[in-house]
């Protein structure tokens, strides 16, 4: 699983603003929701990058931009050296083969009027040169087998399957074009607890089998930790910390990461009375009107004047071994602290 060679995905200064407009006939822009506001990272073959953050932090918009479902406002998304943000028409269609996604809700992500065979086979209809017509049915059955479903169920409809099985169907559809990158947007959060581990194991096995790179977006930090090689923490459209999983979980440097980690309930009642808790006050500010300087400063206990004036960049800071975006970055193990 160790990342090797050149990155297959390079994201640079990615920005996605959604304009807020007023008026019906003469639309006039009165502002913008800064959903993703300057995000850069690399992804290597066979690697998993976990992306964590709370709702509204921009992680789902990031996924959509990476899937070319939304055009970025600026910045580049280089896949194997080609910029997907600038690609159009046939070029874009070819590039899509390389990036596929697994969505959150297994109930709405499958067309209820199509059979499982049609759903998993649709990628071949859209990209006919990937598999000749005669082979498609067999390929679909192979895929069903790969994700642990009975290949004979090819003519069934989605509602005949349970949530976990539907998620496997979604994964099979994502694998059909043999992509190098799969973006998993909360792939297990809609599933029953006893089913989540099955799907995580499946994703893990597929990664090894097909040398896939994952961008794994989730709010469940223990799941992200289990599957990720590196983890990025997002807050209000910015990455505030990026590092190897151990660095983020054991030596978080950004106050937001520390608060996030300490807020996660630990599934072990031992010593719960002594556990350190950083409880943030209030809610995140609106992404339409983020605070100046450091966006976290309004909820941060370390904030000083400089935080309002100067935006901290995502970089390696003294005393820490990985990138963080805080003027007062300081590692502090909140998970093991008692």
């Amino acid at each position, binding site marked *: *699983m160790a990342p090797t060679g050149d990155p297959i995905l390079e994201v640079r200064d990615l920005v996605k603003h959604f304009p807020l407009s007023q008026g019906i006939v003469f639309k006039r822009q009165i502002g913008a929701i800064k959903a993703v506001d300057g995000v850069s990272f690399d992804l290597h073959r066979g690697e998993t990058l976990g992306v964590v953050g*709370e*709702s509204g932090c921009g992680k789902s918009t990031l996924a959509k931009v990476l899937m070319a479902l939304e055009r970025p406002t600026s910045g580049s998304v280089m896949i194997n050296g080609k910029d997907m943000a600038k690609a159009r028409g046939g070029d874009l269609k070819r590039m899509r083969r390389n990036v596929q996604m697994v969505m959150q809700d297994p109930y709405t992500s499958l067309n209820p009027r199509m059979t499982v065979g049609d759903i998993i086979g649709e990628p071949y209809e859209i990209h006919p040169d990937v598999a000749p017509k005669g082979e498609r049915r067999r390929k679909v059955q192979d895929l069903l087998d790969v994700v642990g479903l009975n290949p004979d169920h090819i003519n069934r409809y989605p509602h005949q399957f*349970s949530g*976990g*099985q539907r998620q496997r169907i979604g994964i099979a559809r994502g694998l059909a074009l043999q992509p190098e990158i799969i973006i998993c947007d909360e792939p297990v959060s809609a599933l*029953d*607890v*006893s*089913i*989540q*581990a*099955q799907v*995580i*194991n499946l994703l*893990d*096995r597929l990664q090894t089998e097909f040398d896939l790179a994952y961008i794994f977006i989730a*709010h469940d*930090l*223990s*799941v992200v*930790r*289990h*599957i990720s090689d590196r983890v990025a923490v997002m807050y209000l459209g910015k990455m505030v910390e990026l590092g190897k*999983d151990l660095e983020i*979980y054991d030596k978080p440097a950004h106050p937001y990461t520390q*608060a*996030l980690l*300490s*807020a*996660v*309930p*630990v*599934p*072990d*009642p*031992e010593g*719960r009375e002594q556990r350190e*808790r950083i*409880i*943030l*006050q*209030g*809610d995140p500010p609106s992404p339409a009107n983020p605070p100046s300087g450091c966006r976290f400063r309004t909820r941060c206990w370390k904030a000083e004047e400089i935080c309002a004036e100067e935006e901290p960049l995502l970089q390696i800071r003294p005393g820490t071994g990985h990138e963080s975006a805080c003027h007062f970055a300081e590692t502090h193990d909140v998970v093991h602290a008692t």
Partner: protein
Amino acid sequence: MKNTATEVVPAEGGLGNDPLLAVDNLHVEFATRAGLVKAVNGVSYTLNAGETLAVLGESGSGKSVTAQAIMGILDMPPARIPLGEVRFRGTDLLKLKEEARTQIRGQRIAMIFQDALSALNPVFTVGWQIGEMFRVHRGMSRRDAETKAVELMDRVRIPAAKQRVNDYPHQFSGGMRQRIMIAMSIALDPEVLIADEPTTALDVTVQAQIMELLAELQRESNMGLILITHDLGVVADVADKIAVMYGGRIVENAPVHDIYRTPGHPYTKGLLESIPRVDQKGQELYAIKGLPPNLLDMPSGCSFHPRCPYRQDNCVTDVPELYEINPTRNSACHYWREVLDGTDG
């Protein structure tokens, strides 16, 4: 029978040593077009004042239906309660007249839901909705009720309560809406608060705020709290005791420390083992195999047997009773001794 709830159900103590709330052998069925769905099959648990009982289970386990039966908010029909008792301070609520139950519901047993946005009425201000509790049940004037609403909003720590009392639900964030729901539920100082997945829709940092608030309110007023959830982390944080539900039954109940240290049912054990742990990095996670049961077509015998690593022949045929492991805990597994010992089946 007397008419008002306060007369029917004693205010304090009750008869002898009755617990605050006791669910006893409760059954709930739903008549659906596809057949009879037995959602709850003989559930029993007790709750004392100041205690937090966590009811843990996944969708379809019957955990929410049980709570709705306690509240008396099931739609009947299609729902039916063929058997069982819900004793509140010794009085069986299921035998009370609707009028008497209305006196208890919301006043002495209150409930908060997962989705605060749809539980609040979008066309009334939050102050009006919180104040309604006082106007309807306490006969207060509009002005007094609003003062009370502001007090409550302060108590659930909504910033600038005085200015926001006339705002509408959609003007609040998810966490704040959940606080408003909590404010409504504790308005009349209930003795039992049922929280059905109160933080599932919220972010972790907000979840931490809400759970802390609930714990604090409980300390202040000595309420009994039933926390319905599927999150093993939240349970470990706040519960005193746990009832684990699977397929409409309680499969294990125990004090919180016991269950995490030595689970007594294969399902609980499987759930705990499937949580990703630090030392398992890069390894395959333990996964309970198979699928949750289909309520229309429940497995015979123990409903967990198709997924159970401890399964023996009699699990397929005999429904296990809730065996007593020790006076504080039970397990509905024929082989609870082997499960406790940790010997694998």
